């Protein structure tokens, strides 16, 4: 029972990591740049929702605040690509990466200035509720995280394989030049992908903050999610989720059964092992990308 309990809390954490990793991979595939502010997007999404729904702020209905903050983060992602990155089109990847790191710092500072640096929890209708079955305590929040992630995965799968715009995103990520030749508006597609990963980040943030306290430096969690993305094979969406789950599971299991401190290292130890034995990640896509 003890083990199962750990697995469930690990899965819930892993889903959050997986969702942040998903944001990394989406942007990497579409624009070939890594958004190091993805963790901070997650944090910002959470704080926007806190700002909408918590009592000391606007105290809106929770079920209204959630879609509102997801939508707002989507707009922010789109605008950042449209307003800033599009003008750096053709610049080296390094400058884009440094720009996103700077963006992360700015978001952290702004969030601290607006919502203070104190850890805050999202007030949810289901806070503290749980289901007890045979010695197992399942928090509603944990169940919700797993369910929402599963549903989101399904939506993403259908979106990328069935819809016109999803297929265009795939095409643009596999061969940008050919996508141009087919009349796909690549720049707008890239902005949309940024919007999409902003929305995913918001979902991850809301789930995270409904489970525990969040503060502006929580965005540094993004590094763990980055490891998750690399474990899954940077560039693979299912890989990102799987990598997230592996890391999420490793933490509670390592802290329960391993020597003290190991849980802190476990994600990176796994990353190291994966990189040594399977350098492309679990779902490595051997097909070389041409630009």
């Amino acid at each position: 029972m003890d083990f199962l309990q750990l697995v469930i809390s690990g899965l819930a954490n892993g889903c959050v990591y997986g969702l942040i990793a998903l944001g990394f991979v989406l942007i990497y595939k579409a624009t070939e740049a890594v958004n190091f502010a993805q963790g901070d997007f997650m944090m910002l999404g959470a704080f926007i929702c806190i700002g909408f729904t918590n009592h000391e702020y606007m105290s809106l209905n929770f079920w209204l605040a959630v879609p509102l903050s997801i939508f707002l983060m989507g707009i922010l992602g789109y605008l950042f690509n449209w307003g800033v990155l599009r003008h750096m089109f053709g610049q080296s990847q390094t400058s884009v990466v440094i720009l996103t790191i700077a963006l992360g710092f700015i978001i952290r500072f702004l969030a601290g200035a607006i919502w203070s640096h104190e850890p805050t929890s999202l007030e949810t209708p289901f806070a503290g509720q749980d289901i007890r079955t045979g010695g197992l305590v399942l928090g509603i929040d944990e169940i919700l995280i797993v369910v929402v992630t599963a549903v989101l995965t399904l939506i993403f799968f259908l979106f990328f394989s069935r819809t016109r715009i999803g297929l265009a995103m795939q095409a643009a990520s596999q061969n940008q030049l050919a996508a141009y030749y087919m009349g796909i508006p690549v720049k707008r597609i890239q902005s949309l992908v940024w919007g999409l990963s902003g929305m995913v980040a918001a979902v991850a943030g809301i789930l995270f903050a409904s489970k525990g306290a969040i503060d502006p430096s929580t965005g540094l969690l993004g590094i763990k999610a980055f490891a998750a993305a690399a474990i899954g094979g940077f560039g693979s969406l299912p890989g990102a989720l799987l990598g997230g789950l592996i890391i999420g599971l490793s933490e509670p299991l390592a802290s329960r059964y391993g020597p003290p401190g190991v849980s802190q290292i476990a994600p990176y130890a796994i990353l190291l092992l994966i990189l040594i034995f399977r350098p492309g990640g679990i779902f490595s896509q051997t097909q070389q990308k041409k630009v």
Partner: protein
Amino acid sequence: MSINTKAPKVVLKIDNLESYYGPIQAIRGVSLKVNEGQIVTVLGANGAGKTTLLKTISGVMDPEKGTIKMDGIDIHSLEPDAIVHHGIVHVPEGREIFPLMTVAENIAMGAYTRKDHSSITDDEEMVYSYFPILKDRRNQRAGTLSGGQQQMLAIGRGLMSLPKLMLLDEPSLGLSPMLTQEIFEIIVRLNKEQKVTMMLVEQNAKVALDAADYGYVMELGRIVMNDTAEVLATSKDIQEFYLGVSQDENQRGQRRWKQRKTWR
């Protein structure tokens, strides 16, 4: 000239085009036109600026000077996706396909700009009728196709936008002589049966002149010669420098140690 002779309609008209790769001028004032229903070829060696010319037409590169008119509308400053809406499709060199998508998905992407979803299925069948091998492979990932099949896929995908003008960049690149022959036969059939005007860039002058109605010869970013394909094919310079037919030896039984082109 009889009164009935209609002047051929000009689809594409380029005037004094100049394009740069960074500081390097790749196109130095090119003017040319493509008539409706024709296959026009642009011949030239490596680095003559042929690919740059096509990229400038399809909008992937912006020209520094000059105009590009498609059906009389200037398109030289438009984004590539807008240019596809004007009826130009670029089939790039080196089979730029979507490697992780299936053959069918690749072909479907070719119809991205189209709104008439009902007739897309018919056109897919049309593409498969020209390239039956693609129908057999339609659920296979495009990256696993052979070079010749990828070239067929690139052409078939280009057809799906129902272009008025197709820009073909080196369709023979890396293909065996047999496959090259096969691809060019299909190109000619598409021109005749589907009424697609073609602008064909090639290093392989022999096959290109066989297929084309009119030809331009490009060197170092300039057009140095242009005429109908038959005239070009019999021209001494073209035979010497592009078709590899050796000229008569002189009275001493030796070939000149250095040939001069008439346009230099």
